[in-house]
Structure formats: structure tokens, C-alpha cells
């Protein structure tokens, strides 16, 4: 198993072999982000901008204007918040071919605490025109995302977790990395039987539960789904490696007739994938509503979206297990929340 940041560094080395325009601009965190792998391989194409993220983004824009493909290396939080105006002005508005390796995304950042927790970046970056936002779940998906992003001539923000969270089972998905496409990791209908469905008394098909997550959380969400299955609740699990763009039709199809949709993310409940999925569900065209088309009950059939993530509070430092449990993102806490909500607790 490999961490996402390690996979990022290794893939840049691999891509740098055939692309002499590939460049890394680091803001003094290369040993942490693993950009050091690139530095060792191509020292002339590694630029140390120092502890000056705004200047680093400006330099990257200047390099991109000459045809270089700069990957920035820092913690995501320092790009998306300290250099937000620079990203907006010099990268997004200009369509510059600059890529952001946003390391240490989410809550788990090696006990650095709330100063380093990157838990608003999805909200910030998905509001940015021309910005692609990728959030892979594991090393293999990271490699595919880095390859795709490097070949794409527009800005890309890539979320990378610090720690190895495991490998994402592909669950029959062998498409590697398809930009914009959600990955259905598990379908409730594939596993459900009438005796385990809590809604077997329902006359309609409404009653299924969908879990949607992104980044490293998706692996834990599968664990939550296992726990729920043990308790008698089969769930559909969807992973979003591509937050923007996102094929909304594919999301709606995957949600189908679900009564409950739980979004689970190492991110604020405001503006993350919880907000994203809520927007998609709320914006579903009436004619496309599944089930009882044109029925007066159609509104009642829209799923309840329950956002699981960081609430409106600042967090703290601590070991990963502690933080996940304390802030409701461990597999157990998520399963518990689902059970309470659907009424089988």
C-alpha cells in the first residue's frame, strides 16, 4: 500500500521522463508532500519558492505562460486560503495551466491541528470558474488522476491525503479514472434480500440508502457500509474522485429512488460534497424524477440528504483514530448516524 502523496510524487517522476515542461514549484514542504521524489529525479525542474505561497502561485503562473506545466507543492490549506486571490486572478481567470498538489487534505494531518486542517477547500475551489477539483481515494486512483491532470491544459486542484487509508476496491469499476464520473462502489440491490431490507414492508421501491463520499473517506465509508450490512441495512456506496466536473445525471441515476442519501466527507458540511449533492438533488428536473412521474407525491419522494462532516466548529490536534471518532467520521460513527436516522438503531 502507498499513500496518496507518495503516489503523487512517484507519478510526477514517471511523467517527467517524457515531458520536459513538467515542473514542480514547492513552498518548503517537499519532504512532506513527497515532491522530493521529483527533485531527486529532475533537480533542474524543481523550483524552491520558499515559505511564500502567494509568490509561488505567481511564479507558477509566469512559468505556465511560457509553456511549462507547473505542479505546486504545499499543503492544500495554504494554497486555497493563503493564496486564494492569486489562484483566482493568476490561474483561474487566466486559464493558466497550473496544477495544485493540495497535500494533507481533510482532517488528518499528522497532529498539526486546526491550523493545518484543510476542511474548506472543496467549498472554495469548486466555486472557482475553470477549476477542476479532484479527490481520489487511494494511491492507484491518485496516479490516474495525476496522469489525467498533467495532460489537461487547464487548472487542476488535487486533494491528497497525508496517510495511507488503504486501497479502494474497484467494485467492478475498471475504468481507471474517468473525469466527471462517480464510482458506484457497491449497489444495495446487488446485496439486498427481502429479509434484510428494512423497507420490505413498503409497497414502493423507495427505501434504499445511499452513502456518498470522496477522498480517503470513501474507504472508511465502505467499512461503514459493512457495519450497516451486519446490522441488516444494505446500502449503495458512491465515491466521487472528480468533484468538479461531475456528471449530475450519473449521480441522480446512482441515487435512484433512495429515501436517504448520506454524504460523508473530511470537510465542512458547508459547501463540500454534502452541499454539492444537495444542489444536484434539489435541482433534479421534475420530468426526470424517478418513480411516480407527475404524481402529487413526487416531492415527498425526493431523498433526504444528510450531511456528515465537520460541523460549524474548529477542531483540534490528535491521532487519526481520535479525530475521526471525535468528529463523527469513523466507520462506526457514520454507521451509527445512519442507523439513528433511518430508525434501526
Amino acid at each position, binding site marked *: 500500500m502507498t499513500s496518496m502523496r507518495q503516489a503523487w510524487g512517484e507519478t510526477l517522476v514517471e511523467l517527467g521522463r517524457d515531458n520536459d515542461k513538467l515542473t514542480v514549484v514547492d513552498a518548503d514542504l517537499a519532504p512532506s508532500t513527497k515532491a522530493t521524489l521529483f527533485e531527486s529525479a529532475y533537480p533542474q525542474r524543481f523550483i524552491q519558492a520558499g515559505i*511564500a505561497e*502567494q509568490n509561488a502561485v505567481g511564479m507558477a503562473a509566469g512559468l505556465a505562460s511560457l509553456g511549462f506545466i507547473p505542479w505546486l507543492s504545499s499543503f492544500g490549506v495554504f494554497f486555497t486560503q493563503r493564496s486564494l486571490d492569486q489562484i483566482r486572478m493568476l490561474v483561474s*481567470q487566466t486559464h493558466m495551466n497550473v496544477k495544485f498538489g493540495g497535500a494533507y487534505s481533510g482532517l488528518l494531518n499528522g497532529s498539526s491541528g486546526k491550523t493545518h486542517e484543510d476542511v474548506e477547500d472543496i467549498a472554495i475551489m469548486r466555486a472557482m470558474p475553470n477549476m477542476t477539483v479532484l479527490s481520489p481515494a487511494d494511491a492507484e486512483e491518485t496516479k490516474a488522476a495525476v496522469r489525467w491532470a498533467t495532460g489537461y491544459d487547464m487548472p487542476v486542484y488535487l486533494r491528497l491525503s497525508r496517510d495511507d487509508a488503504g486501497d479502494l476496491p474497484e467494485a467492478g469499476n475498471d475504468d481507471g479514472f474517468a473525469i466527471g464520473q462517480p464510482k458506484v462502489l457497491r449497489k444495495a440491490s446487488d446485496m439486498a434480500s427481502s429479509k434484510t431490507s428494512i423497507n420490505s414492508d413498503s409497497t414502493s421501491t423507495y427505501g434504499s440508502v445511499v452513502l456518498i463520499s470522496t477522498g480517503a473517506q470513501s474507504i472508511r465509508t465502505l467499512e461503514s457500509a459493512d457495519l450497516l450490512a451486519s446490522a441488516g441495512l444494505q446500502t449503495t456506496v458512491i465515491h466521487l474522485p472528480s468533484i468538479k466536473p461531475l456528471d449530475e445525471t450519473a449521480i441522480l441515476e446512482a441515487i435512484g429512488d433512495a429515501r436517504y442519501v448520506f454524504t460523508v466527507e473530511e470537510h465542512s458540511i458547508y459547501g463540500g460534497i454534502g452541499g454539492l449533492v444537495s444542489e444536484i438533488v434539489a435541482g433534479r428536473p421534475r420530468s426526470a424524477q424517478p418513480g411516480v412521474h407527475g404524481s402529487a407525491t413526487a416531492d415527498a419522494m425526493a431523498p433526504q440528504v444528510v450531511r456528515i462532516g465537520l460541523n460549524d466548529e474548529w477542531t483540534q490536534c490528535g491521532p487519526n483514530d481520535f479525530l475521526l471518532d471525535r468528529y463523527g467520521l469513523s466507520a462506526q460513527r457514520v454507521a451509527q448516524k445512519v442507523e439513528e436516522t433511518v430508525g434501526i438503531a
Partner: protein
Amino acid sequence: MNTHNTTNKKSTTQSPSEPVDIETLKALSRKGRWLVMSTVAASKAGHIGGPLSAMDMFVALYFRQLNIDPEHPDDPHRDRFILSKGHNAIGLYSVLAMRGYFPIEELKTFDHGDSRLQGHPDMLKTPGIDISSGSLGQGLSVGIGMALGAKKLGKSFHTWVMLGDGECQEGMVWEAILSAPRFKLDNLTAIIDLNGLELYGWEAGPNDRFDRGEPLGHVDLPSVFHGFGWNVIEIDGNDFTSILGGFDKAMANRGSGKPSIILAKTTKGAGVSFTSGTYKWHNGVATPEQLAIARDELKQGEEDKSAISTREGEQS
């Protein structure tokens, strides 16, 4: 409003290879200042003071210094110019138009909907703009990226960045000032337009306050830049002999391993009596009476009088 008269494409007879004498530069500056005054008056929005303080340097850059070709604005070997103080866009547009990047006629569309000439420079819209700007403090960092990239590509072009003194209150500027010497960018020249005034002005005298004053007036700039590792050049930014001498010194500095900073003392609103030396014309719209005064002071001819009336007609 947005139609272009392509027959006006070559609005000047100057070509890059022909040297332009100082009297011609002065005439171009007067015309550039007039284009700023009249365009802002017609569009009823825009900046005056900064574009006028920097006009002589814009003209010197585009008619004497930069290795550029308006027919090929994206030539990879061209010198780069970054207007970090992006609110001076109309000053740059006026010079780009005179230099032939687009018709002078197109200045009439400045700041209008769907115009190529946005209120702040937009590289995706305007030929000759090397980087978009408008959020202050960012240009020098981009210049560092360009100059560093040029070294890595083995390209000999020079990168110029113009900053305002007010802009230097932004912290990112100092990140860049700290970093450029570390990369030994002797192919980079920054110019600070030291006009001493910003939007929030003050009146000297009994009501003067300790927290108002020249943005960098309390700073020993030559010592600071020497200390940061820059090659320091001081000029009068409203005098062509001084400007061209300063540019020559910057170019002679290539090979030294140090970036150059040109500290250019200027007068805000220079060239027009009622805009000169006051913060009150940081931005503003001249009345027809004021325009007539400016036109006379800038020695603009009958052709330009008709241009005023045309624009006034369009606005009403």
C-alpha cells in the same frame, strides 16, 4: 460600439528597428495622456493619475525599449511587460493602440460590455497583454516566473514589471522582492512608479495626520533594495533622458546575477495642470471644459476635438 476599423491597424509608422528620438517620444506621451483623458471621459470611468504619472515610461518601453512586434503579440521570443498596477490599464491600452496592437478607435470601447479593453488588463481579451492584473501586488511574482522560465528555456528575452508605490503595501510584493535575487534573475527589471499618492489621499497642512502620507515615503528605498540584493537604479520617471538612461543601466546589468529595480520618481497626474500632483484625480471624469484645457496643454489637434464630440455624442 464594438466594431473595429481594421484599416486603422497600423496607427503609427514606427517599427521596432527604427530609433525614436526624444521629441517624438514626448509627442507620443502627450498623445497618450490625451487618449487617457478623453477615453476615461467618454467611458465615464477609469483612472487618470497613475496612467499619467507612468505614461512617459509606458512610451519609453513600447517605443524604445521592448523587443516586441505588434503584428505577432504572442511571439515566444518577445520581451515581457507586466503592469502589476492593473488599474492603470487605460494608460497601457493607449500606448498599445499607438504602437499598433489594435486600432486607436477601439479605445472608445474601453470598459464597455463585451469590449476587449476591460477595466483591468485581461490577457485573454487584449493583444499585447502578457498577464492579467488588477488585484494588486501580484505582478512581480509572475515576472519572476517568466524570467526564471526564460533562463531554464535558454531564451534571451527580458521581463519588465511595473508596480505602483501604493501597491508595495501588499505583502506579496515583498515575498517577490525577497525571492528574485535568490534566483539570480538579471533578466528581470522591476519599475516602481513613485508618484507618492494613492486613492486615499491627504491634504498637507494643519489637518495632516500621522497615518497619512506617501505610501513608501518613510522608507529608504535604495538601501532597502541594496540590502535585498537588487541592482538599484534611480530615475526621474517623467524625463525621457533619465528614463532611457535607467533602462540602459538595467540592460547593462544583465550578466551580473542581480535583478534590477528602477525607482522612478514621478508626479501623479503628470502632464495636465489640473490633474498633476493631486490624489483627487486618482480616478475621475473630466468635464468638457476640463477636457478642452487638457487638450490644449497636451497640444492635441483638431482631429482630436472631433473625437471628443463624437464620444460625447455617443454617451448622451
